[in-house]
C-alpha cells in the first residue's frame, strides 16, 4: 500500500482538489442514499437507535473504502468473466473480518446488528462503487471514493437514527457509554409511568421505532434536499 501511495505522489498531489471532491461529493450532490438510491436496506433496519447506526456507518465506510482499494489494486489482473464473483468475494472477505472484529471488541452490538452485518455484502453502495469507480481508477483515488461514499451513507444513517431515537424512545446513544435520557414518558406501555425527566408532556411516538418510519424520514430528507438542490429534481 505504501508503495502505491509513493508512486501516486510523484504524478499528482496526494490530496488535491479532485481528491477532496471525491470525499465531499457523496455528502450532498451524489449521496448514496438520497440520490443514488443505493444501500437502503440496512438504513432502515438498524437506525431505530443511534449507537448501532454509528457502528454500522463505520463498518460500511471501512468496507467500501478497503474493497475499493483492493479491487482497484487487482483491477488489471481480474479476469472479466468472473469479475462480479471476485468483487463479491473481496467484499464478503472484508465483511467477515468486520464481523469477527465486532465479536472481539463489542459482542452486544454484534448481537444487536445480527444478520445486518452480513447484509453489508449486498449493500449496493459497495458493489456500485466497485463497478462504477474502482474498476477504472487508481487505488488511492478509489480508496477516497469508497470512503467518501461510506461517509455519505453513514451521515444519512446517523441522521435518521437521531430523529428516530429522540422521537421514538426519548433517548440518545442508548446502549453506549454516553447514553442521554431526556424524555421519560414510556407510551409503549399500557399504564404510563410518571418518572418523566424532561419533556414529560411528550409521549414517545412508537411509529418512529417501526422500520416504516425510516422510509418517511428518508422521503422527507429527499424532499428537503431537493428543495435546496434543484438540479437533483426528478423531471420524468
Amino acid at each position, binding site marked *: 500500500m505504501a508503495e502505491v501511495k509513493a508512486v501516486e505522489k510523484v504524478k499528482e498531489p496526494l490530496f488535491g482538489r479532485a481528491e477532496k471532491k471525491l470525499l465531499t461529493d457523496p455528502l450532498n450532490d451524489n449521496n448514496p442514499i438520497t440520490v443514488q438510491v443505493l444501500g437502503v436496506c440496512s438504513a432502515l433496519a438498524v437506525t431505530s437507535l443511534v449507537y448501532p447506526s454509528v457502528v454500522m456507518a463505520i463498518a460500511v465506510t471501512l468496507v467500501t473504502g478497503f474493497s475499493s482499494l483492493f479491487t482497484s489494486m487487482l483491477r488489471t*489482473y*481480474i479476469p472479466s468473466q468472473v469479475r462480479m464473483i471476485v468483487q463479491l468475494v473481496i467484499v464478503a*472477505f472484508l465483511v467477515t*473480518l468486520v464481523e469477527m472484529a465486532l465479536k472481539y471488541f463489542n459482542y452486544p452490538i454484534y448481537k444487536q446488528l445480527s444478520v445486518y452485518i452480513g447484509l453489508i455484502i449486498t449493500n449496493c453502495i459497495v458493489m456500485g462503487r466497485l463497478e462504477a469507480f474502482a474498476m477504472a481508477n487508481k487505488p488511492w483515488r478509489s480508496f477516497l471514493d469508497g470512503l467518501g461514499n461510506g461517509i455519505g451513507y453513514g451521515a444519512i444513517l446517523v441522521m435518521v437514527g437521531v430523529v428516530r431515537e429522540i422521537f421514538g*424512545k426519548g433517548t440518545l446513544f442508548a446502549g453506549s457509554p454516553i447514553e442521554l435520557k431526556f424524555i421519560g414518558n414510556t407510551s*409503549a*406501555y399500557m399504564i404510563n409511568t410518571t418518572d418523566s425527566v424532561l419533556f414529560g408532556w411528550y409521549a414517545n411516538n*412508537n411509529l*418512529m421505532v*417501526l422500520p416504516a418510519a425510516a422510509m418517511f424520514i428518508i422521503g422527507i430528507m429527499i424532499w428537503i434536499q431537493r428543495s435546496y438542490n434543484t438540479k437533483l429534481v426528478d423531471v420524468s
Partner: protein
Amino acid sequence: MDKNSTNYVLLFVLMMTVVVALVLTGVRQGTESKALENEAIFNKRAVLAAVNDYLGMGEGVTANDLADEKVLEIFDSRVKQITLNTAGEVVEGVLAEKIDMAKEKKKDMADRVLPLFQYENEGETFYILSVRGNGLWDEIWGNIALESDINTIAGASFDHKGETPGLGAEIKDNPTFPGNFSGKKIFRDGEFVSVVVRKGGAQDTTYEVDGISGATVTADGVTKMLHDGISLYLPYLNQARQNSKMESLLIDQH
C-alpha cells in the same frame, strides 16, 4: 498468460480462494477465544440482570452497568451453577452456563437438561431459572429470579431474536416490562399458576403483569414461555419448597 483463458481464470480464482481462506482462518484463530469469552460474559450478564435489584452494587446499578470483570467476579464468587433434568435431579458433568437453551428446546421433554443459578446476596439465596419460548416473529427467552421462598419473583430479564422494535421488542428494551415482574408470585396455595401478561393491564396484582399495547402475540408468548418453562423446574422447586418448610418448622420447634 492470456487473461481470458480458462487456465488463467481458474488459477486466479484458486489463488484468491486460498489467500482469503488462509487469512480468515488465521484471524479467526486469533479472535475466537476472546469472542467465546465475550459471548459467555454476555450470557452471564443476562442471568445477573434477573437480580438487578439485589446486585448489592449501590442504588440503581444494573447488570448492564457492570464491567466485564465484575460480571465474571460475581459469577465466580456468588453464583452456584446447578444442572437439573426434568425429573428434578441434579445432573453431574454439565456446567449450567454451557447449556444451550435453543438446542434443549428442540429435544424431548424427558431428555432436556435445565440450568439453575443459585445466587447469594447478603445471606439471601435467589434461584435464577432460564426459560425459552416463541414470540411473534421468532424465539424469545429470559431468566427469572425467585426469592428464597421459591414463590416470589425477585426480577426477570428478557431477550428476543427478532421481535418488532417498539412493540414486541419492548420486553427487552423497556426496563419497565421486566421490572413489573418483581414481587409477583408463581404459586397460589401451593399450586403452580405462573404469571400472566395481561392485555389491557393487570387485574390480579399478585399473579398478573401489564401487557404491552400492540404486542399481544409477544406478550402471550411470554406468558406461555413462563408457564411452560417454569413447569419444567417444578419437580425441583416443589422439593426445595418442602425442604425449606421442614427447615422453618424445625427452627420453630427449637
